[in-house]
């Protein structure tokens, strides 16, 4: 079997971050988080563990909502969703997320799509995983230009959720709401601390010699390359085909 690709390590890391959740939701245009959630479900089933529910927006087969697009938010507001993923055009060291644009609002120099459900879900989903595959100082800034969703809230503001971890193409960080700030947990294979420091516009805590992100074991890789790719291809056919090509034995 070919060794794990960087994306397979990301997908496996997401499944690990989701350990213990009962219901995970994945937003639109998020193939890697969707694959991570599907991998978790497959691993739990293989281990005979209690079922994990997943709700993939944009999927017909892996989405059991029947009350339209509001159901995700109603569900989350009641605490029925344990984990969700957010990305950001900018993410800063305090865990603030900007999905709107660069420069002064409203006439931003660069305009991104908008805040979607972030201004709500970040408050009410206990385990929000920040995921952005690209890792550059333009994305990971000291301070966001627009707060679509704040990393922490003052005491007295209802807040049952918030950032749990930040996963990028270079490494995995934990979020500490008490500082607030990020701490580097592990570095993905092929990268090093200097590279991450250079690519990050905010200061973060880390060990002198941070751990390496563990790649998937053979059983996990087999699930990922089999069942998970099949399931993923319904919503993300192009992405699934690309992953397949990367790991095909005759490539």
């Amino acid at each position: 079997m070919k060794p794990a690709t960087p994306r397979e390590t990301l997908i496996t890391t997401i499944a690990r971050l989701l350990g213990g959740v009962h219901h995970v939701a994945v937003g639109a245009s998020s193939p890697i988080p969707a694959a991570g959630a599907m991998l978790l479900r497959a691993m739990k089933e293989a281990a005979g563990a209690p079922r994990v529910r997943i709700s993939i927006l944009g999927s017909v087969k892996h989405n059991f909502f029947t009350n339209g697009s509001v159901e995700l938010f109603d569900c989350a507001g009641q605490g029925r969703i344990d984990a969700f993923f957010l990305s950001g055009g900018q993410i800063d060291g305090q865990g603030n997320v900007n999905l709107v644009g660069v420069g002064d609002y409203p006439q931003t120099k660069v305009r991104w799509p908008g805040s979607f459900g972030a201004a709500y879900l970040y408050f009410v989903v206990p385990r929000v995983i920040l995921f952005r595959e690209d890792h550059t100082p333009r994305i990971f800034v000291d301070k966001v230009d627009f707060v679509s969703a704040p990393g922490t809230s003052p005491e007295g503001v209802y807040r049952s959720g918030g950032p749990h971890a930040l996963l990028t193409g270079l490494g995995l960080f934990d979020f500490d709401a008490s500082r607030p700030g990020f701490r580097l947990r592990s570095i993905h294979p092929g990268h090093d601390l200097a590279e991450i420091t250079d690519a990050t516009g905010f200061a973060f805590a880390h060990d002198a010699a941070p751990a390496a992100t563990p790649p998937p074991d053979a059983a996990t890789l087999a699930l990922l390359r089999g069942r998970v790719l099949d399931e993923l291809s319904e919503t993300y056919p192009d992405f699934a085909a690309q992953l397949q090509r990367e790991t095909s034995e005759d490539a």
Partner: protein
Amino acid sequence: MPATTDIPSLARLIEPGMQIALPVDYAGVSMAMTHALIARGAGDLDLVCVPTGGLQADMLIGAGLVRSVETSAMTLGEAGGAPCFNRAVRDGSIILRDSTCPAIHAGLTAAQKGAPFSAMRGLIGTDVLRHRPDWCVIDNPFGPGGDPVVLVPAIQPDVAIFHAAMADRAGNVWIGRRRELATMAYAARRTIVTAERVIDGDLFETEIMAAGTLPALYVDAIGIAPKGAWPYGLWGEYPADTGELLRYAGSAKTDAGFAAYLAETGAAAP
């Protein structure tokens, strides 16, 4: 409920300055109405995207018909950003009411109930809230003190426009589990629907179909438009045409490219 109406006549129901609710790209966008609305030319529209906007809103903006957009996001999905919207933001030519998905639903739900506002969690400390002077924050009146909550006013659009798989001759429309379409219709003063087909049977005949049916009570006019969501897909009917969305995204990068795309696709429209 009258018999079905031709698409250009449906577009003539839209008057300048109206507030128009449009659904998210996967829920049943009446793309068939887009060219007709542009030909009709009623401008100064206030769009409410439920809860995000895409190709249809972008084309109406590109055609210069839009005064303001209330939305939680504007995107062509895998085809990237919405080019005419992005240009309008840069030029400052439209008023932005950036929102978040559940706040749009909350506003519509308030209108559905005839209530003046809805209360919701989240939002405190965001720049979304800071830029919405029409929203307000109060302390939870039922709590022991403190506990700020956001109030969003009812959104009662003048017209909701969407596309569905089928209607019956009595004007009932089958929306399946796309319940946001019902919310739009409950909230709006008038609702215009285009449908793939009109069936001879009665959608209330069986409980199975009735459960997914929007009663004619909430539907003011229906037009027949086969493949009326194209290039978007329609649940249970056909997938999105991503190639066409990408072609639009490429063409509409400039005003001239957008005009050329409009001329070419408009010539083929009803």
